[in-house]
């Protein structure tokens, strides 16, 4: 299975029945493919939708119905539309149970950097800061290392922060890692890897429980 698909499939297990969920672009959006309909969650989209479904086929595309990434979508039963002010009231006042975002860097204490690389990549902020800071639970889904093979999980971030101490859990192609009291704890290991590889590819100390870790 493709690494990104594996991450998305594992991330789906974080979603509980009845939750209000926001999925960022990239791997988070791929979670929709694995989302069990019986959980009856409502997916929030920043552009003013609660109850979006996955990207639709060409023949079902509606010119007035896109997600925050611009893709044409289907609507779920019980969906609602609202304006941008209300959309972010929902995010900032704690009604969003869980958000999934990507990351460029994450620090030991759960700081997130995902919005800019000075001089190289400055697309803007979008809804990311508010999602990171205010979702009740923030899960980062990402490949464990950068395209060049560098560690993305670090003792402290080198890039400008999106938000401080906001990450609860990190799901990568190699591991599930939790931020616990400003430290990183290894919680699950991918079937395809070893403890040694995870430690090598992580740029921050990991607490490793003295027990058999679940595999995924």
């Amino acid at each position, binding site marked *: 299975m493709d690494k990104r698909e594996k991450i998305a499939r594992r991330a789906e297990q974080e979603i509980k029945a009845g939750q209000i969920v926001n999925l960022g672009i990239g791997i988070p959006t791929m979670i929709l493919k694995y989302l069990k309909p019986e959980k009856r969650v409502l997916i929030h989209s920043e552009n*003013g939708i609660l109850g979006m479904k996955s990207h639709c086929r060409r023949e079902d595309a509606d010119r*007035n119905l896109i997600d925050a990434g611009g893709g044409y979508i289907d609507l779920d039963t019980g969906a609602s539309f609202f*304006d*941008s002010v209300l959309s*972010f009231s929902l995010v*900032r006042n704690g009604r969003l149970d869980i958000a999934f975002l990507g990351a460029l860097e994450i620090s030991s204490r759960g700081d997130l950097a995902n919005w800019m690389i000075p001089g190289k990549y400055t697309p803007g902020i979008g809804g*990311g800061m508010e999602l990171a800071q205010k979702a009740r639970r923030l899960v980062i889904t990402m490949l464990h290392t950068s395209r060049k093979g560098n560690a993305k999980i670090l003792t402290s971030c080198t890039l400008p922060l999106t938000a401080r101490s906001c990450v609860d859990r990190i799901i990568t192609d190699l591991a599930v890692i939790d931020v616990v009291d400003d430290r990183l704890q290894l919680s699950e290991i991918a079937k395809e890897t070893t403890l040694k590889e995870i430690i090598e590819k992580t740029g921050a100390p990991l607490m490793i429980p003295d027990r058999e870790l679940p595999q995924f």
Partner: protein
Amino acid sequence: MDKITEIKDAISIIKDGQTVMIGGFGVPGTPFILVEALLEQGTKHLTLIKNEANIPQLGVSRLIEAGRVDRLITSHLGLNPTVLAMMNENQIEVEFNPQGILAERIRCGGAGLFGFITDIGIDTVLSQKKQVITLNGQKGLVESALRADVALIHAAEGDGLGNLIYEKSARNFNPVIATAADVVIAEVESVVPIGTLDPDNIHTPGAFVDHIIEIKELSDEYGILEDFVFG
């Protein structure tokens, strides 16, 4: 039906150097016909306030590419490499806001408020340029209100009083932008007789709207963007 206006007359209100706020999030809700008329009019040195800059060669991106915009107050330009390149080459000044903070700054401008205090962006580079104050024991950034000389918005239905109804995800920034400018110009897909719209379903009351432009025919820009069909 006093608010129904010819597009040229309405757009001629916009002068060089003014601030224009424009609705839309992607294609839905972007008033392409009004933007095109503004481009044709040749107005320059504009400050634009819009969530994003559409995509290259579409909508407000055409205004920016034509060099008509000095300053852009926005949230995200990830889908517009052309405008990002212009920003990096200092051909346009760009101010990025967290998306909901941009919406809330406009809301304040429309609600007669000076600004608000928020913890969004605290401990980030955003806090460096802003006043930080403590209120009820909590540290927050002061965010100022945003207003414009003219607002350009798009609605699905409307009447001669200026009552408006938006459709699906085309609502986005349009209702809040309708409150935050000295002159509000709305292009409307379907103009119906006064009294036809259900008062319970009106999103923007006519009091906020100055000019209604009836869209005779939707241009190609309003259609499906094939590059964004992912299903």
